[in-house]
């Protein structure tokens, strides 16, 4: 079977443009709006209501506003790194979506090392954050970047442990095969419930959301590593974070909630229902829980989640082998 390379490149470019536009709109814009509406509902107040029907065009307006804000670069900042850091974070968040299966046959590429690839892209984000924190030449930004990076790397390990437990259950690293395995064996949220819990906690910490958003804490570090970022560069950091959060939710539906399987409705609809259910849950947690202190956060990861994850892997292995 010969492959027409130029045609494949064109297809890939189109797929990339479609996926990224979808992410930017459904993910970031709708996500930010959802966050504000849900936050308002939980706090017994109205979220944005004026722009468009029920405030739906709020983020569109915000984006247009940000597009014409002045780019302020602090005077001693390293300009090259200052500008590339948000790009790294945004692209890493976007690349994660390559291995997410939306419906049977509707996945960008079913990589053989799907789950490993996801973890690898998540770990690239840390470099972008460190670079951003440093490039601002602002000690609060630097400190925020270091703390954020410490938090993110600490939670990558329990995240990997949860992913490995699921891979063990399914016998494969490919996301599509994991969804199909759940069709045979039942949703992994049941069989791998501890892994699900570990994954949700680690995923929340990986995207720097409350209760793990100390590095961005407004009351302590201004805005952490993006204190000096204004306008669109700030928006790109946010895009990366929201894309990553949605990607984690999408991965959770793929790995634990059976992906696109469901009775009556078409698979794609089921996928989105499940994904948004998890996103809602994440936002709900944000507006409910107080923030954890950094040492509490790190203790939680190293002393509780990581040993628990490794022990769970051994238990699963024992269960499957014997």
């Amino acid at each position: 079977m010969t492959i027409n390379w130029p045609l494949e490149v064109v297809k890939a470019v189109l797929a990339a443009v479609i996926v990224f536009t979808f992410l930017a709109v459904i993910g970031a814009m709708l996500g930010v709006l959802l966050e504000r509406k849900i936050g308002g509902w939980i706090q017994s107040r109205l979220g944005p209501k004026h722009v468009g029907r029920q405030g739906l065009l709020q983020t569109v307006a915000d984006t247009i506003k940000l597009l014409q804000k002045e780019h302020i670069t602090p005077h001693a900042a390293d300009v090259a790194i200052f500008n590339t850091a948000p790009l790294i974070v945004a692209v890493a968040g976007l690349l994660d979506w390559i291995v997410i299966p939306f419906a049977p046959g509707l996945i960008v590429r079913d990589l053989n090392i799907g789950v490993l690839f996801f973890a690898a892209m998540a770990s690239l984000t840390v470099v972008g954050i460190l670079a951003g924190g440093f490039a601002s030449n602002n000690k609060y930004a630097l400190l925020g970047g270091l703390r954020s990076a410490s938090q993110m790397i600490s939670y990558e390990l329990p995240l990997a442990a949860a992913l490995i437990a699921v891979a063990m259950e399914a016998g494969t690293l490919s996301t599509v095969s994991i969804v199909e395995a759940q069709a045979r064996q039942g949703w992994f949220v049941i069989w791998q419930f501890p892994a699900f819990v570990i994954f949700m906690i680690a995923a929340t910490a990986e995207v720097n959301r409350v209760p793990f958003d100390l590095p961005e804490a407004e009351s302590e570090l201004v805005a952490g590593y993006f204190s000096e970022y204004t306008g669109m560069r700030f928006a790109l950091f946010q895009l990366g974070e929201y894309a990553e959060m949605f990607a984690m939710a999408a991965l959770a539906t793929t790995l634990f909630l059976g992906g696109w399987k469901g009775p009556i409705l078409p698979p794609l609809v089921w996928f989105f229902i499940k994904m948004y259910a998890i996103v809602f849950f994440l936002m709900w947690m944000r507006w409910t829980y107080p923030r954890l202190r950094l040492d509490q956060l790190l203790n939680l990861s190293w002393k509780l989640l990581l040993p628990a994850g490794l022990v769970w892997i051994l238990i699963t292995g024992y269960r499957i082998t014997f």
Partner: protein
Amino acid sequence: MGELAAFIILSAIALVSAVVVVTSGNIVRSALSLVPTFLGVTGLYILLQAEFVAGIQVLIYAGAITVLILFVIMLTEGGTGLRVRQVNEQVAAGLLATVVLAGLLIGVFLRTDWPRGPGALPQYTAEAIGRTFLTTAVLIFEVTSLLLLVSLIGAIIVARRER
């Protein structure tokens, strides 16, 4: 043909970034240039059909080692402001040594009879690697865990002596 183009692009990325790593006076820029170098090498692994190795290259090198290096730079006093002078008085001798070494290496490469075996590439998939280190290379695998333990203990001892 496409593979050759990909090889050239990836090698270019890896080499140019490597040159920046070595010659840049700004140490943070130097450390951050490691990322494209590692990504270029990742691409080369893909060209060798070794996708698992490519995945862990990104995960470990670009994700963990770069972070480690950046942490150390940012935590060293004046480290981030370090402007290292890249050229010293021995440029001529250095250049001569480089040319001689390059000539030697190229000569060796051209004269070696690279075996071109028939058939497919050895399997470098995750399954194949897993099978190998669980069956034929078990001892190496277990010793690796000891090696990791030793590095961990050693590093903690060294780092904590600073207190």
